[in-house]
């Protein structure tokens, strides 16, 4: 199955909003750090329901916010969730971004980057469209150190890239993005039941669930275009 077909199905049965709710726990902390100034143009790669761009409009007065996603049904949902004329959505693919060189101030991506077919090329594309000094905020829950995420590959019919923290840093630099920060942002909001509730459907032990959310959480890598 293609990424598009997979995520069109997610959008159709409302999983776009479910993801938004869970991802917001950590995404909001990363979004708050972005040096977006009033009037800036921001692009959300793999925008899903589009919540991140809308938040940057509301909290930082971003000028224009665009969401790109490969799944047409996702983008249709995202568009339906807003009437803001300065927010727009585009169907497109990470590997062939339909944006001009140096045309965007900042790029955001949450839980989407690792679906790129050629992730280093996607980084080169991001670097190309960012104006010099613009940032790429790349947030992922699926990465090497987060061992409890490894099994996700079994549940989805699309190949995912599982880099370690240092592989992210190296790949950014390979694509001429200076690495400005890397951080694990804990999810402090997910409810972790008391030890006696384990095993649950998803977790063998409380320790594992704690490690997944509070220790590893979301890996954020910030690159700056040169």
């Amino acid at each position, binding site marked *: 199955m*293609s990424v*598009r*077909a997979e995520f069109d199905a997610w959008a159709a049965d409302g999983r776009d909003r479910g993801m938004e709710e869970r991802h917001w726990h950590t995404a909001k902390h990363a979004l708050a750090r972005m040096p977006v100034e009033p009037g800036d*143009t921001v692009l959300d790669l793999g925008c899903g329901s589009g919540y991140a761009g809308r938040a940057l409009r509301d909290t930082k007065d971003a000028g*224009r916010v*665009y969401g790109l996603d*490969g799944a*047409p049904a996702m*983008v*249709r949902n995202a*568009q339906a969730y807003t009437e803001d*004329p300065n927010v*727009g*959505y*585009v*169907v*497109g*693919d990470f590997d*062939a*971004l*339909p*944006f*001009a*060189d140096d*045309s*965007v101030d900042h790029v955001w991506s949450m839980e989407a980057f690792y679906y790129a077919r050629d992730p280093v090329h996607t980084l080169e594309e991001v670097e*190309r469209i960012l104006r010099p000094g613009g940032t790429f905020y790349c947030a992922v829950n699926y990465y090497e150190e987060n061992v409890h995420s490894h099994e996700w590959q079994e549940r989805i019919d699309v190949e995912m890239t599982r880099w370690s923290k240092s592989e992210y840093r190296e790949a950014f630099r390979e694509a001429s993005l200076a690495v400005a920060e890397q951080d694990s942002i804990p999810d402090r909001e997910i409810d972790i039941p008391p030890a006696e509730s384990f095993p649950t459907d998803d977790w063998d032990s409380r320790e594992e669930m704690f490690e997944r959310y509070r220790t590893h959480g979301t890996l954020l890598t910030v690159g700056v275009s040169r």
Partner: protein
Amino acid sequence: MKESLMDILCDPLDKSDLELEVDERDGEEIIEGRLVGTVTGEVYPIEDGIPNLLPPDMRDEE
């Protein structure tokens, strides 16, 4: 899509300019139409206000 998006859009294949052809608009908003690669000649549809800029070989793949 708003017409102002044209400022930064380009052809995903070779990053050359696109030309906008409008079938239906509502003020600034383009509802139906297409974007045509000025170099590649590729046609990218705009449906329900949303431009589909997937490379053509990906658009049809399922």
